[in-house]
């Protein structure tokens, strides 16, 4: 798709009613797992659009009105997307889906990413969310008596990754080298998308964590939310800090276009495909609105930031083989500042930090002690059947 020629829907023609926003949810049972993955990803991007917009408004008097106008649409898009999750998803089942997003989307990004260092960052983060899925699956099984594969639908493995207990790092070991001004557009879009997705995951865990009664769940969400905050720190640090606010905004709109475009290409549910297409056109409208603002306020040609062609769509399908290969070869990597090193060379600051937070015990270790995912839950193992 040509980003600069497709003008999309102009801003003043965009709008949703409450009933469109709070429309029919997907079926947890019958829709594809990847339909839910798309919903969660796009909800994360829309919420990040609001976040960026508010940060920009605090620092740019001249942009407050255009930001407020676009933000109103983003709010309503975010609602329409987020409300697609049906009420029969328990918060913990939705959590399983969030980690599936973090694994499958990050794995797809890691393989498409043209910059080898950035690809390494994604593989590093991926193995951590992969471990979260294992811990949360143990919780779902042991607390609610449910099989995480009812949500995952056979697309994502449930085995330990880089142990969550070892993921706690000192802040200096979560910062990465940012992409540069010369980076490929795709690299910039990837960093924007994954940062947004991780931010949403963090906020979701912070919101639902205290709604659980079980102390095991409360502790696990507290622990994993902290890792998601590290992930936001890590992926957020990939964004080039020398970009102007308008450049960040322009890239964000481009990432929204790219997200919806990718969703529309692969969606199996016709109703959702129509929604993704509609919102892709809305985002093109936002993008061109910001292009004009950039010309006006910075006297810059947006083509300097955007390439003409949108990259090939992000694939939405199981990345099982890739994830297994990364698990086999990179699970023992650790961080030392922005670099990835063998476990024995890990920065002592992270080891000291970890000892402190884990001093009272490790919720992620306790919940999954001897956990062995079994189709139909661990109660479906022969040992339990014989009893």
């Amino acid at each position, binding site marked *: 798709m040509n980003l600069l020629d497709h003008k999309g829907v102009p801003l003043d023609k965009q709008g949703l009613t409450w009933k469109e926003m709070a429309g029919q949810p997907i079926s*947890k*049972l*019958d*829709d*594809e*797992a990847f339909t839910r993955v798309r919903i969660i990803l796009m909800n994360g991007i829309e919420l990040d659009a609001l976040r960026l917009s508010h940060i920009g408004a605090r620092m740019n008097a001249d942009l407050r009105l255009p930001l407020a106008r676009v933000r109103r649409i983003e709010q309503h898009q975010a609602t329409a997307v987020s409300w697609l999750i*049906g*009420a*029969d998803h328990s918060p913990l089942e939705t959590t399983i889906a969030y980690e599936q997003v973090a694994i499958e989307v990050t794995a797809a990004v890691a393989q498409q990413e043209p910059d080898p260092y950035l690809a390494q960052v994604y593989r590093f983060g991926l193995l951590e969310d992969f471990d979260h899925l294992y811990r949360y699956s*143990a919780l779902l*099984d*042991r*607390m609610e008596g449910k099989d995480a*594969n*009812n*949500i995952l*639908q*056979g*697309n994502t*493995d*449930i*085995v*330990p990754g880089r142990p969550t207990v070892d993921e706690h790092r000192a802040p200096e070991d979560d910062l990465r080298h940012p992409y540069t001004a010369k980076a490929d557009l795709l690299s910039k879009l990837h960093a924007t998308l994954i940062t947004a997705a991780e931010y949403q995951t963090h906020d979701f865990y912070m919101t639902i964590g205290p709604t659980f*009664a*079980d*102390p*095991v769940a409360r*502790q696990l969400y507290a622990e994993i939310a902290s890792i998601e905050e590290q992930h936001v720190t890590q992926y957020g640090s990939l964004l080039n800090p020398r970009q102007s606010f308008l450049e960040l905004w322009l890239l964000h709109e481009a990432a929204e276009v790219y997200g919806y475009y990718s969703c529309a290409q692969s969606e199996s549910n016709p109703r959702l495909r129509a929604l993704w297409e509609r919102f892709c056109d809305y985002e093109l409208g936002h993008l061109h609105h910001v292009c004009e603002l950039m010309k006006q306020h910075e006297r810059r040609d947006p083509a300097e930031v955007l390439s003409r062609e949108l990259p090939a769509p992000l694939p939405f399908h*199981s990345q*099982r083989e890739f994830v*297994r290969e990364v698990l086999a070869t990179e699970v023992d990597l650790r961080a030392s500042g922005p670099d990835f090193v063998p476990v024995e060379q890990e920065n002592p600051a992270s080891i000291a930090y970890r000892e402190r937070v884990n001093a009272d*015990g490790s*919720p992620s*270790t*306790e*919940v999954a*002690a*001897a*956990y*062995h*995912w*079994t*189709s*139909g839950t*661990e*109660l479906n*193992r022969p*040992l*339990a059947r*014989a*009893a």
Partner: protein
Amino acid sequence: MENVTRSGFNRTGAQTSLHTVQNMQAFADEQSPSGPSHIDGVLEGRSIASVRAESVHAAERIGSVPIPTTLTGVLATGLSKLTGHRPEVLVDKLGERLAFERTGVRLYQALIDKAEAVQADVALPFTIGELKHIRDEELEHMHIVTSALEGLGADPTAQTPCADVAGVASSGAMQVLSDPRTTIAQCLETILSVELTDGAGWDLLIRLSGSAGQDDLIKPFSEALAREQVHAQQVKGWLERAVVDDLD
């Protein structure tokens, strides 16, 4: 869309993607720690039990039962008539019953709203009038408890700890009844468990009132219990008709 469940392409089970899930299971078998060797280990989820135990020891209570704070308050009210050493138990359980009946009115209303919406398309095992009659009786029961609490000098507008916990327990019922996607049969299944709990609640309350020396409460409560038993029987019959009998 018709208010019945049909067979279709449910994707949640292992057999939907049999080879993939076999592959997934084989990988889990290879990569996971070996599980507990005894059934107790599986059932306890290993160290979850110890985290729970530690928290149970450290936990504070959900809250307290509101009792009139001044002595004159107590003397001026029926609370002074309470025999037995823990009057707060009766107040707490009355508060629970009140909250339960109040929510019950809303649960039945949600079922009525759904039934009215679908009655043109599907055969209903009950009449809307029958549902409204039960709803109205739940409301009457709520007021019986309100009067009982007032008679004791307790505050019927307070949320007691048992009322709060009953609200947590019935939150799932509310989700089922108010979800436009659920069928009448699914709603009846949920209402049945509410009614069975309701009947047991009245039964307990009658015994508790007797042991607290509140004999004048026993008659109205017994009448309520009799009605609740009828509700449970009716709902059970409707559910059977909806699920077992051909209503098409």
